């Protein structure tokens, strides 16, 4: 797909409008915006949408063979769901749950109530369409951190806001002459691996972790 621009801001290709609204409101609480940029400025919701709608969402690098057992925590993730399935099922269950509460859509709740609900998901194991709520929360949080801190080529970390915030220079490749200047303040603007040389970052709709095996 080369360096074609990705979807325009706000245009979702995996989430339906209700799901998109919940995820946007949730990530806005997970990494809120204040005097420092948050998940919304970074485009985290769009990053998650792109990931779930692409190879990663379809289960790339996830072994999917059965049989299935819950296992112990040290054995890691053992559900049959791809990330896309996991989100779809959990978000459907969350939508019903929110509706039952009768307080209107989640995105309109007070921040304090939103935080309480997210904490409940994080600390509980309530069944969300086959997905324990803590497993859903961990998946959402994992993707949120990735979308906040990744290279902007993936549609998150828009404008490299998080890299500017922490001082990470990005894809820059040479510190040979600086490494022994101990404690130096590195002030060069960060660089994306998809920087086009004019200060613009070209979005890549999907970069699979690994191309198909070519053989000889």
């Amino acid at each position, binding site marked *: 797909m080369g360096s074609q621009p990705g979807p325009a801001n706000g245009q979702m290709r995996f989430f339906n409008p209700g799901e998109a609204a919940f995820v946007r409101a949730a990530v806005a609480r*997970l*990494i*809120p915006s*204040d005097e*420092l940029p*948050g998940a919304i400025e970074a485009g985290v919701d769009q990053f998650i949408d792109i990931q779930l709608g692409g190879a990663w969402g379809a*289960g*790339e*690098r*996830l*072994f*999917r*063979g059965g*049989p299935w*057992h819950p*296992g*112990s*925590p*040290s*054995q*890691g*993730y*053992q559900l049959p769901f791809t990330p896309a399935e996991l989100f779809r099922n959990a978000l459907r269950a969350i939508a019903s749950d929110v509706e039952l509460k009768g307080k209107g859509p989640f995105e309109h709740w007070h921040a304090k109530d939103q935080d309480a609900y997210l904490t409940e998901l*994080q600390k509980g194991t309530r069944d969300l369409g086959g997905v324990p709520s803590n497993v859903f929360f961990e998946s959402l*949080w994992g993707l949120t*951190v990735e979308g906040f*801190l*990744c*290279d902007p080529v*993936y549609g998150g970390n828009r404008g490299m806001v998080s*890299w500017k*915030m*922490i*001082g*990470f*220079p990005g*894809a*820059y*490749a*040479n*510190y*040979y002459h*600086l*490494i*022994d200047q*101990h*404690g*130096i*303040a*590195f002030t060069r603007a960060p660089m*994306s*691996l998809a*920087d086009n040389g004019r200060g613009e970052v070209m979005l890549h709709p999907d*970069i699979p*972790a*690994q191309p198909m*095996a*070519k*053989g*000889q």
Partner: protein
Amino acid sequence: MATTLPATDVVLVGVGLVGTMMGRELTRAGLKVVGLERGQPQFTVPDFQGPRMHDELRYSIRKALMQDNTREPITFRNRSSETALPIRRWESFLPGTGLGGAAVHWNGQTYRFQESDFRMRTLTEQRYGKKFMDADLQVQDWGVTAAEMEKHYDRFEYLLGVSGKAGNIGGRKVAGGNPFEDPRAREYPTPPMKEPYGSAMFRKAAASLGYHPFPQPSANLSQNYRNPEGMELRTCMFCGFCERYGCEHYAKASPQTVLLPVLMNDQRFTLRTGAQVLRINLSPDKKHATGVTYVDAAGSEFVQPASLVILGSFALNNVRMLLLSGIGTPYDPQSGKGTVGRNYAYQTTSAVQIFYNEKININPFMRSGASGTVIADFVSDNFDHGPHKFVGGAYVGEVMSHGRPIEFHPTPPGTPAWGAGWKHAVARYYNHAIALNIHGSSMAARQNYLDLDPTYKDAWGQPVLRMTFDFPDNDIRMSKYLTERTMAIARAMGGEQVVPGARQRPYTVTQYQTTHTTGGTVMGSDPSNSVVNPFLQSWNVPNLFVIGASNFPQNASYNPTDTVGALAYRASEAIVERYLKNAGPLVAT
């Protein structure tokens, strides 16, 4: 129906570090060699070039260079009473794949093991008595000595161009190097790398406490270097994208940068990538390997007859290949009988974090995979274990290798797990924190082993490897003691807050620790407790050599690659000088 190919002198199973080295030595001896690599061909140009290579999400998080776990998973459990389940995503360790193998995405930390590692059982019993070790430990001698290994370490380090400072040349102590190392013949090929800020702080603190800091030996080079094979390496740029990545700069020693192009130019060598070896074929009496069966990337099956088989795949896959081929007796933890899969060990790592005020810029993103400063005062038997009631040890150092932010965004205890508090802590501490690494040994124990899983199959319909592992009590005690000692160094490093993190049970596959999986085809002088003899030749099948970290009877404090390379050179010397003249067992049984 398999197609039988023309016979060759040698077939290599895996063309990573070991395969490339053995291919070079055996073609040099005049043999025709076929290299079978399951993954793809990959080279510095065009495959490892920036800025595309500097993609944390793709390479670190999605594990682009690693074994395809959707086709070849491993199952895991902590103890044999549990049901092993597939590791559905790689996290704890990362088996590589593709041409060059794990030596493409390694960090370049290049240490020699010590005499007290190679003769651990004998020397421990001599110094501390026969009852000192816990009853569950199956520590044993390697069947080699540090003196025998020296010339092979030397040759391998000069192949890589390792940057370091000798501490002991021919028995004479040299200031600035590791005073605990066994004698080496000469200085490192290139001088130490530049010392990063945090490493310098560690060096001063460690020295002030009476320890002996030295620069970590690195296969990311401090200067341009031409190796004895005529390959040119370049100076490392400290780009901070090393482990889990290929090197764009020709600065990290890997098969591609130190040897593979030489081998590829040899008419006697044939490389086949996308070749998944299913099994080593045996004669009816199971005492002779006739070659291997493999499936190519398009799904066609082939038999490659060969006079000599070199199994040099990733350590875990070496073990699985013997089990799949019915070579040797699988280990049974109940009876203690059998050797294949026995003595699986790992690395007992822990960390201490130091948080600084905002005036101290650590610049964690300016790093090489193997830059840094360490001490060996607590390695192996370099200190008196008598009062501590454990064996083994760790090197301790400031060896941070990157500041890639998805993986690295340290926050002090008490920081909220998410929300505004988390974000502000990440912003506050990203450039003002250091982690000290405690890289500890891992003792083989009776209850830890590898075998074939009874349930799960790979994409070719063959049983996957099953890992049964938890940290033995001995290693938990070691980790606690070493982490406490490291806390004292950390407190002397001028931070605001010091946070310990000793290793706890249970071992979990959900957290990256190291890729140093060892054992399962261990070397030794006694066929009742080893799979290969001290020249890495199968006790059962003399025309099969099994080479890799799977040969380690237990894992030492240091990183394994230098020892794997030295063992490969030692095996190649035995094959060329002795086996080719008289094909048969190199050690009588």
